[in-house]
């Protein structure tokens, strides 16, 4: 009897929530959006009365942005969407999948974790059509198909996850006016960047703000550094073999990249607060040093999301700007770009979840988020003029100029390395251990 009462209570609560459904942010039919794709989807899909639960990584500000996009899906398909997220979303998806009460659609930024879930049979394959569609419609489509394909429970590889929304990681942030005041130029090569670093020290300043602190995830910003330097010192296929452990973590190629990171982070003169402060500074506090007076530092290496943590009122493009983390001119490895992204996958096969994957194929699903902010997409059919702010367009250009695009390596590695020993190893490294020591320990922790 208690169960029945609870169920009816839940139904009532759902009804109340429906009244709060968001209004559509961009009126249908107006602006340079691809409304035809919306209308086509609207006509083809009628799932009135169905509900879809989505569990994703976007919280706070990002949750508002994604819900705008979801409102269009609801309007077109009639499916009521329940989006939720939490700080511990990775663990929660694992627990829910294991216990048999997963959401309909889960969205995760870690391909390594998705591979685990696929292997245990919790994910539904997306099918050949979607695979073909991705290869055709995404820029560098085959690499995206590769990113979303994993070995299933029976060992056959298939497409399980749909990449949606990407971030560029190979960025260096700076304050253009501080550069002007000091007479510095944006470096075009890694050699110039290292020369600039030494120049700033010679001028009595501190070049870098590096912060690895992130509570339980302390250390991850350093993995981005190492991956970026890996792509700049080794060919892309070495990088690929590194992420699968075909190339051992303690091989000289990797140790070299870690030492290169050490050139920046382990020199007391190069980092604000000295090398000892690197591990203890929170990555969210770290960029604030760019904006103090006098500036605590001039340069900050971080992904495209970091402006959320700039001091209030900072205008990107005016108070702060970014440049491409350059490649070594002497190494002829092209212009590699490191990125990250989120992948959507079906954890409960229903018509609504299938429809949602179809929806992600429409240009409009990308454009309504693009037109807001912090959204990059490799989909070729979107109208690039819709980018909500010019900096996103500039990042899009970095992406387009890339000769190589590689996904965040730590997200590709097994969780115990990519979200474990790699992080702690980097903390030990900046704390004083040698690159070889650290790399040996990480290699030892790689699951057999």
């Amino acid at each position, binding site marked *: 009897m208690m169960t029945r009462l609870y169920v009816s209570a839940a139904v009532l609560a759902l009804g109340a929530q429906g009244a709060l459904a968001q209004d559509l942010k961009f009126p249908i039919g107006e602006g340079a959006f691809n409304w035809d794709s919306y209308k086509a989807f609207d006509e083809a899909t009628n799932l009135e009365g169905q509900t879809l639960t989505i569990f994703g990584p976007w919280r706070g500000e990002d949750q508002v942005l994604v819900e705008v996009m979801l409102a269009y899906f609801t309007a077109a398909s009639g499916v009521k969407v329940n989006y939720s997220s939490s700080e511990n979303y990775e663990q929660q998806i694992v627990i829910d999948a294991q216990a048999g009460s997963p959401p309909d659609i889960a969205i995760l930024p870690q391909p390594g974790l998705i591979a685990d879930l696929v292997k245990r049979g919790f994910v539904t394959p997306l099918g050949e059509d979607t695979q073909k569609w991705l290869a055709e419609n995404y820029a560098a489509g085959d690499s995206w198909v590769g990113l979303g394909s994993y070995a299933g429970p029976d060992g056959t590889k298939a497409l399980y996850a749909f990449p949606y929304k990407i971030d560029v990681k190979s960025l260096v942030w700076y304050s253009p006016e501080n550069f002007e005041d000091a007479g510095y130029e944006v470096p075009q090569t890694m050699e110039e960047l290292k020369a600039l670093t030494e120049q700033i020290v010679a001028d009595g300043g501190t070049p870098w703000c590096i912060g690895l602190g992130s509570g339980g995830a302390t250390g991850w910003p350093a993995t981005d550094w190492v991956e970026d330097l890996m792509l700049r010192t080794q060919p892309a296929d070495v990088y690929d073999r590194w992420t699968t452990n075909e190339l051992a973590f303690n091989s000289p190629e990797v140790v070299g990249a870690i030492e290169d990171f050490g050139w920046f982070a382990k020199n007391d003169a190069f980092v604000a607060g000295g090398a*000892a402060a690197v591990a203890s500074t929170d990555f969210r506090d770290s960029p604030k040093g760019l904006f103090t007076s006098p500036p605590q530092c001039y340069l900050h290496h971080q992904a495209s999301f970091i402006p959320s943590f700039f001091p209030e009122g900072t205008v990107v493009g005016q108070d702060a700007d970014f440049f491409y983390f350059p490649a070594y001119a002497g190494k002829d490895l092209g212009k590699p770009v490191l990125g990250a992204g989120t992948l959507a996958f079906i954890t409960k096969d229903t018509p609504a979840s299938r429809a949602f994957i179809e929806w992600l194929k429409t240009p409009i699903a990308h454009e309504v988020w693009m037109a807001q902010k912090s959204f990059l997409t490799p989909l070729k059919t979107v109208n690039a003029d819709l980018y909500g702010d010019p900096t996103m367009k500039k990042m899009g250009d970095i992406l387009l100029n890339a000769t190589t695009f590689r996904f965040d390596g730590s997200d590709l590695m*097994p*969780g115990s390395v990519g979200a474990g020993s790699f992080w702690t190893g980097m903390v030990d490294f900046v704390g004083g251990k040698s690159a070889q020591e650290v790399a040996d320990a990480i290699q030892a922790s790689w699951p057999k």
Partner: protein
Amino acid sequence: MNPAFQALLVIAVGVGGCVGYFYLSNLFLDKVLFPARGPQAGRNINRANAVRPWLFLFPALALLCLYLAYPVFATFWLSLHGKDGSFVGTGNYTAMFQEPKFGESLRNNMLWLVVVPAAATGFGLLAAQLTDRIKWGNIAKSLIFMPMAISFVGASVIFKLVYDSRDAAVAQIGLLNALWLKFEGGIWSVLFLRVLPAVLVGGLLLAVLWGGWLLLRPVLDARRQEKPLIKAARVLGGLVALVIAFELGVWLLGVFTNVLPYGRPQAWLQIPFWNSFFLMAVLIWIQTGFAMVILSAALRGVPEDTIEAAILDGANPFQIFFKVKVPQIMGTIVVVWTTITITVLKVFDIVLAMTNGQWETQVLANYMYDKLFRSLDWGMGSAAAMVIMALVTPILIWNVWNARKEMR
């Protein structure tokens, strides 16, 4: 329907259901099944009394079996299986014991197990005794209890602010570093950073030595006849005390000889070994309130006449406290100690939020969480859990033994 009203209704049904069960089942037992009247009244009363304990126990036992006992067996079973679900026997255990991180967790856990319950119970007892004697004691109690009301997440935020460390060039916002920078090696530094710790460590050293002597004295006393087992236990205890005393002596020496990095802000959570103590401080801060409330209730329950008798005998307040009150509330102290010990073994939130086991602060509970949800290795995680349970077994046996002694 208003959600608040729904919630109330649901609460009423849930709680009412519970009360209803106990009331109606007892009614049924006494009036219908074994009525205490008619020809078999006497037998029925006996029968009803034999059944009633189980009636009282049934909901609790059912929930316990389902929610705790069953997972224990499931865990044990899982701990014998590998990551891919195949049976590996004790493979997980041997693999785990070879991991350096596991050894580190085990060592740290031992440290936590000794320091946190002792400090929290000690402070709790002190606070309970002192606040009972003054007019504004209740206010003081509320303030000391307050951290109990703060979630681990909140406590981590609070102590992160205390431990915050910044470049020496800018103003410190962490209280501990601001205080630390006040010391420059002058007379106050010597007083606070050499003499005071030396007095504390020295006091502890003497207490340990005295405790060891108390343990060993009966062995040296030839007149006393004791079982060899107890003698052996006494010698073992004495040796442990000696080892601890030696360690403390080394510390005492260190207090005077080590070179302190005056004038440089410290990243407190990154100093190996000592950072564990900074994490423990958070849990001690939280748990002292618990110990104080329970112990204060026990202290008030100490019969007045025993105290009055002691006063008449000319005992001073310290003697009254240690020789009259403490022995009478020993049972409660054991309960508090046990409860905090168990909390220590299970706490992972503080470590997770503040260091995630880096800089050599890993503890078993966080190690297990890491294995379960980050590595998705259920076998290893379960094995770690079994180790946690094994660690508590001595305390358990002691508690059970105590419980049985009481019942006799």
